[in-house]
């Protein structure tokens, strides 16, 4: 992309094309012959990884849009039907939802790399600013994408973020109304967010082209921060950078696959498995992890307008970085003081992220204010002053010299720091949740479906179904489950005939018939599980004013705090069983009479594990209430565990397929990474 190419194809057909449209020459000069500094380290592979992630998000996103319905009444269920019914729908959805997080992890590493090695300095200012624009577009895209599943967090995230604009004086409220297309977040909002969420990735792709163009004009920066001078300083992009980027990408895919196949909901919020309800705000609103530092900055400022200004300012200040930092030396390797401040800045960002997930009160607010100051001070005070007073170390004469000198490696420690930091931020949401709830934490039970090769216990699923049918289903609906699901692979293992029999026992309303009347007919496999009440009002009237929640997703819609450092281990242990632990504990958590100092509201029951302890559901099950035919003890703890297993299956019906495919993908990727590593070594053997 840096001017006319001298490349001439030998094939006459290609020559014919090349004379008319020099596209092969463009590709050749940009991605084959393009000289790349030979001392690039693995932090430089994140550019390629980001392009890869953009591709993954566009491909999976276009496919999801084939099945998604952008309507307030149907969006939530259409996402669930993608996960449940569409072939490999669960895979595509988890690739896309976790892909967003991977995209942001990669972009943060990419940005910090640029910050550390001074990649924004002359002549790369425009390259850097284009990067900031891409980052802003990514944030907008990520936010609007998060709204689409129309869960509780989607809805309230949309409400809170759009309300930011109401802080603008005079025109704020008009702007917010304009964004909503109504008087509140509603169907028009969802529709336009869907449209824009589809559009923006292509805008990002366009700006990425400019970003790469600017990169190829200025040339890549490198760890030494000196420009290439001779041929010896560079190697051709292909095969050297291609294979190195490829190896980095495969390693990143292993990390990505770990999330997709083993902990797909680790970064998500259980509340987003509850359908959006404009009447109830979740107790603790937390944005996605990648916005947390900015969210903390927003909340730390006691003025509404001030908070919004600071939040946007925290991003915009990046665009001025090339002029705030005037130091001639690019790489922080040779800037002993700047290097230390850089790591302090990283720590500030991580801590801000952690604070963003804490309740906005007391010591957290004070800490947020101090760290917000530190964040801005880094850009507005530290860097401008350092560029005047710091005495840099001697920079190598050339890249070739740098390669020979073999600068001491600190990569490993930096990776450890980043992994810890990421874990801290990721887990802090759960941290915050629990402080809200207080009370004892449900005990962790051992589940057959946990871990990398977990499978449901068929017996437990069938018993759990029996408990659900005889006990839970009298009040709780199961809207996302169909009778056909009982015979699905990886489910309770009913035969089609058995599932048919279950269905035909149930009367389903159908119609109208020729006379215009509704009529009852026996259920069919394609029918949903019928709800116990015709509507929400009837359900509330029959249950003392409380609405028994739908149980289809309950095992993913409930969580509790695991605390630090437990949530870091959870990443490695693939812990995803909060929901079943909670359900099991709740069913056994009734205490009668309640503790003396607890004022129990009328019509409520005391439950140790229910948030706030006052639950409207009476103790639902006691020993020997449901008859087990297989000799399993008919005790409450057994009932609870069985029904929790069943509910985990209804929430994640393709869990077994996911873990099975996950193992195959992991084995494949590890073999592939090994091959890539040795191929890379062979290729680079020529360059040293």
């Amino acid at each position, binding site marked *: 992309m840096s001017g006319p190419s001298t490349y001439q194809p030998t094939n006459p057909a290609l020559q014919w094309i090349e004379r008319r449209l020099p596209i092969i020459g463009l590709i050749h000069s940009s991605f084959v012959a393009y000289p790349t500094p030979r001392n690039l380290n693995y932090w430089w592979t994140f550019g390629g990884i980001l392009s890869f992630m953009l591709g993954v998000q566009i491909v999976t996103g276009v496919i999801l849009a084939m099945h998604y319905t952008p309507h307030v009444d149907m969006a939530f269920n259409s996402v669930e039907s993608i996960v449940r019914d569409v*072939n490999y729908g669960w895979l595509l959805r988890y690739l896309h939802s976790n892909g967003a997080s991977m995209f942001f992890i990669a972009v943060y590493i990419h940005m910090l790399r640029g910050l550390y090695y001074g990649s924004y300095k002359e002549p790369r200012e425009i390259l850097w600013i284009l990067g900031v624009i891409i980052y802003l577009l990514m944030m907008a895209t990520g936010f609007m994408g998060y709204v689409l599943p129309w869960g509780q967090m989607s809805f309230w995230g949309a409400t809170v973020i759009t309300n930011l604009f109401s802080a603008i004086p005079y025109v704020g409220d008009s702007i917010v109304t304009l964004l909503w297309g109504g008087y509140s977040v509603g169907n028009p909002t969802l529709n336009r967010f869907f449209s824009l969420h589809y559009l923006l990735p292509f805008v990002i792709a366009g700006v990425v082209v400019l970003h790469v163009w600017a990169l190829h004009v200025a040339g890549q920066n490198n760890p030494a921060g000196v420009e290439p001078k001779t041929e010896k300083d560079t190697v051709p992009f292909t095969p050297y950078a291609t294979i190195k980027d490829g190896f980095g990408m495969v390693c990143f895919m292993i990390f990505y696959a770990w999330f997709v196949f083993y902990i797909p909901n680790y970064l998500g919020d259980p509340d987003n498995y509850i359908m959006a309800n404009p009447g109830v705000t979740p107790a603790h609103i937390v944005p996605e992890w990648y916005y947390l530092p900015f969210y903390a900055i927003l909340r730390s400022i006691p003025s509404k307008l001030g908070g919004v200004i600071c939040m946007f300012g925290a991003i915009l200040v990046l665009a001025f970085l090339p002029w705030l930092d005037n130091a001639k030396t690019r790489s922080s390797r040779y800037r002993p003081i700047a290097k230390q401040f850089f790591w302090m800045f990283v720590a500030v960002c991580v801590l801000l992220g952690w604070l963003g997930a804490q309740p906005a009160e007391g010591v957290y607010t004070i800490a947020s204010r101090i760290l917000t100051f530190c964040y801005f001070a880094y850009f507005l005070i530290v860097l401008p002053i350092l560029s005047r007073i710091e005495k840099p170390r001697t920079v190598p004469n050339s890249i070739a010299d740098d390669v020979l000198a073999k600068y001491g490696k600190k990569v490993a420690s930096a990776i450890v720091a980043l992994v810890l930091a990421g874990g801290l931020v990721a887990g802090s949401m759960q941290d915050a949740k629990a402080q809200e709830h207080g009370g004892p934490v449900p005990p962790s039970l051992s589940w057959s479906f946990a871990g990398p090769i977990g499978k449901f216990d068929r017996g437990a699923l069938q018993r759990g179904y029996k408990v659900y049918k005889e006990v839970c289903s009298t009040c709780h609906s199961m809207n996302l489950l169909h009778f056909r699901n009982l015979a699905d692979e990886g489910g309770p293992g009913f035969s089609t005939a058995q599932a048919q029999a279950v269905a035909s026992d149930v009367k389903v309303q159908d119609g109208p018939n020729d006379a215009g009347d509704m009529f009852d007919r026996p259920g069919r496999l394609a029918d949903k599980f019928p709800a116990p009440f015709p509507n929400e009002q009837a359900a509330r009237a029959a249950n003392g004013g409380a609405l028994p929640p739908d149980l289809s997703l309950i095992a993913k819609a409930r969580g509790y705090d695991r605390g630090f450092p437990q949530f870091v281990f959870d990443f490695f242990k693939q812990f995803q069983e909060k929901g079943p632990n909670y359900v099991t504990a709740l069913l056994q958590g009734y205490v009668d009479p309640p503790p003396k100092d607890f004022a129990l509201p009328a019509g409520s029951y005391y439950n140790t594990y229910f948030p706030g302890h006052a639950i409207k559901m009476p103790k639902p099950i006691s020993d020997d209430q449901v008859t087990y035919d297989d000799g399993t003890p008919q005790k409450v703890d057994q009932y609870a565990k069985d029904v929790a297993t069943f509910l985990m299956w209804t929430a994640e019906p393709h869990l077994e397929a996911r873990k099975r495919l996950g193992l195959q993908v992991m084995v494949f990727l590890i073999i592939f990474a090994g091959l890539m590593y*040795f191929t890379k070594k062979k290729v680079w053997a020529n360059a040293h």
Partner: protein
Amino acid sequence: MTTTSSAEHTRRDFLFVATGAVAAVGTAAVIWPLISQMNPDASTIAAGAPIEVDLAPIAEGQDIKVFWRGKPIYIMNRTKKQIDEARSVPTASLPDPASDQSRVKEGHDQWLVVIGICTHLGCIPIAHEGDYDGFFCPCHGSQYDSSGRVRRGPAPLNLPVPPYAFVSDSKIKIG
């Protein structure tokens, strides 16, 4: 590079080929779910289960249209005249030869059950129109007789008979 032996060359070539092959396999494996997701999903397949239709309300000479798997199915209670017309035509003279007997269920000769989609380009023919006491397609003028066989026009084939069976004398199960 001058010291590189030919043995090393072979090993290196093998490594490159192996890496490339694994990458190709991986790419192919990724494409599979991306294509497979376009097939009908589980709910669509479940909704395509057989349906039962009660024939009792359909008087002689009348027809109804029901939908099965999104396709309109014509169920026609044919008159004696229509049956005779359909059976008096020499089969060999038809564009898509088939006897009327082969298109209805034995013992239920008055019932014609056909998928009402023109075999030309998929329009819905109108019943009881055209010159053959059968169906007339308004799009391009194809005509079908009282057995649903094509008689005239661009359509190449007869209206297909869906899989169905009589559950009782007045009830059929389509699918």
